[in-house]
């Protein structure tokens, strides 16, 4: 007789470290969302005038906010690293001088670009100091 047994998927992501890392990667979206909301409130306050915007600035100077942003920073870094790790999967085969470009090379190029972009952004910010 046949009586196929279907195993449940509950807590599947705890079964393997690979899945745990995947869930951390997905969780970084919460940080990206949180930061977008912080900036949205900032732009909204900016439109409401000096007093409102100064309130937003004041909130950013509080210790809970600083700690919160350090957590967001860690999450953003995890996002960036995991983004370039998976990016080669979305690309068709690349060839340079007839040789296949390995995925690791693409990832490394992405990470280098990310570091360069971060430094360029800081340099730009530096040049725009009052």
């Amino acid at each position, binding site marked *: 007789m046949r009586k196929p047994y279907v195993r449940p*998927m*509950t807590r599947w*992501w705890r079964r393997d470290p690979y899945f745990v890392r995947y*869930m951390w990667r*997905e*969780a970084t*979206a*919460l940080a*990206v*969302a949180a*930061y*977008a*909301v*912080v*900036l*949205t409130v900032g*732009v*909204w306050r*900016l*439109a409401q005038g*000096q007093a409102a*915007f*100064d309130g937003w*600035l004041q909130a*950013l*100077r509080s210790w809970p*906010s*600083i700690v*919160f*942003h*350090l957590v*967001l*920073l860690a999450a*953003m*870094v995890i*996002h*960036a690293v995991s*983004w*370039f790790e998976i990016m080669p999967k979305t690309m068709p085969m690349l060839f340079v001088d007839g040789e296949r470009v390995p995925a690791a090379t693409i990832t490394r190029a*992405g990470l280098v*670009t*990310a570091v360069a*972009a*971060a430094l360029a*952004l*800081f340099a730009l*910010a*530096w040049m725009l*100091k*009052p």
Partner: protein
Amino acid sequence: MTPNPPRSHAPIFWGLFGAGGMLSALFGPMLVLITGVLVPLGLLLPPDYMSYPRMLAFAQNWIGKEFLFFVISLFAWHAAHRIFYSLHDVGVHAGPVARLLCYGAALVVTLVVGGSLLAIGW
């Protein structure tokens, strides 16, 4: 497998997800560091770096407007797409309500930022 399955509209949201993901991967960490840590603490950059007159001038500028609009809204659309699919991953039914909440939130962010930037003017 049903013959001729209906075409998914995922490409629209996936495109926004990809654009936002790339922007946040390249610029997210430094933006968070500058706006959330360095300027509030006055480290490396002065504490008045983001003062109202300076930020107003930035937001009134065409480049500043586009920067703020695209960074903030694309970050939101990226996050909305990933959070929606993650709900499915953790067993929450990924139906129309979840879809509306996730993408709706991104739309709200987009409209608030867009509206605010228009209100700020030039």
